[in-house]
């Protein structure tokens, strides 16, 4: 019998969100209907945002909900609707392919799980975890300044080797911004209607 007060709520919500995320990911894998796959994927991505909140990455969690669940998934669902003919909604996979995929996936998972628990420092949780949440001030300002090239969180880093490698992210930020712009223009160009192009030529 577990005492109510003994429950570590951080672990409880971690268990809850991780079970939802993994179960929904399995749902994506095992449901044959593409519309159901999209619905399961939404649940899985939203539960992962909960995991990000639990790891102290609030801004990333909110971005996960806004960009992934609000943007990318809407795109995917549009794709599902535009191609939703009765023969393509549910396509069966051959049994042989399932066997090969199960072998490959099982081996990969065994490898990754073993690697996850192989390092002692990863396995042992922080001792003062419970006192930590109250002491840390929550702000996304260090993230925003880091994207502008200034790392104010350098002062908190105690490890000299890590501090030497901490750099601003202004150039990657600009590159990813231009990349997103070019990619969206390119995607709109690729997905344009062919009939209008034919009229334009004639």
């Amino acid at each position: 019998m577990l005492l109510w007060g003994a429950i570590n709520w951080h672990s409880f919500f971690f268990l809850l969100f991780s079970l939802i995320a993994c179960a929904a990911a399995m749902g994506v894998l095992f449901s044959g209907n593409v519309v159901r796959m999209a619905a399961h994927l939404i649940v899985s991505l939203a539960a992962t945002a909960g995991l990000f909140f639990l790891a102290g990455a609030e801004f990333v969690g909110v971005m996960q909900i806004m960009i992934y669940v609000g943007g990318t998934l809407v795109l995917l669902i549009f794709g599902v609707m535009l191609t939703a003919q009765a023969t393509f909604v549910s396509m069966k996979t051959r049994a042989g392919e399932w066997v090969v995929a199960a072998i490959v996936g099982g081996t990969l998972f065994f490898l990754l799980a073993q690697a996850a628990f192989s390092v002692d420092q990863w396995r042992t949780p922080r001792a003062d975890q419970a006192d930590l949440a109250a002491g840390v001030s929550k702000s996304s300002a260090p993230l925003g300044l880091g994207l502008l090239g200034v790392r104010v969180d350098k002062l908190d880093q105690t490890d000299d080797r890590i501090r030497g490698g901490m750099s601003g992210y202004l150039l990657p930020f600009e590159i990813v911004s231009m990349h997103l712009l070019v990619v969206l223009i390119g995607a709109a160009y690729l997905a344009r209607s062919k009939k209008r192009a034919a009229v334009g030529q004639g």
Partner: protein
Amino acid sequence: MNPLTNPVGVSHFLLVGAVLFVTGVVCMATKRNTLGVLMGIELVLNGANVNFVAFGSSYLREQSLGLDGQFIALFVIVLAAAEAAVALAIALNFYNNHATIDVDKADELKG
């Protein structure tokens, strides 16, 4: 150990990331619908993101990477959005030209 009373460490996050990654890889390998393959890619990127955030979290271990994990996770999210847009445009083009969305039918470039 009791998962409800013990605190979680980086390893537990890595395990969740591994489950998401492996389901994504198997999804990419088995789905015949192009959009199903795309969803597998999203799962893989998401599993990698869980690992980045876990390594950057100061809640889980004392010598954490700091904010770099969160930066890389943000870049991965943005690049995943860009990738989904292009891949969806390609899938729609394929559907318009071939009247099918089955990846096994895309075999014109076979030698």
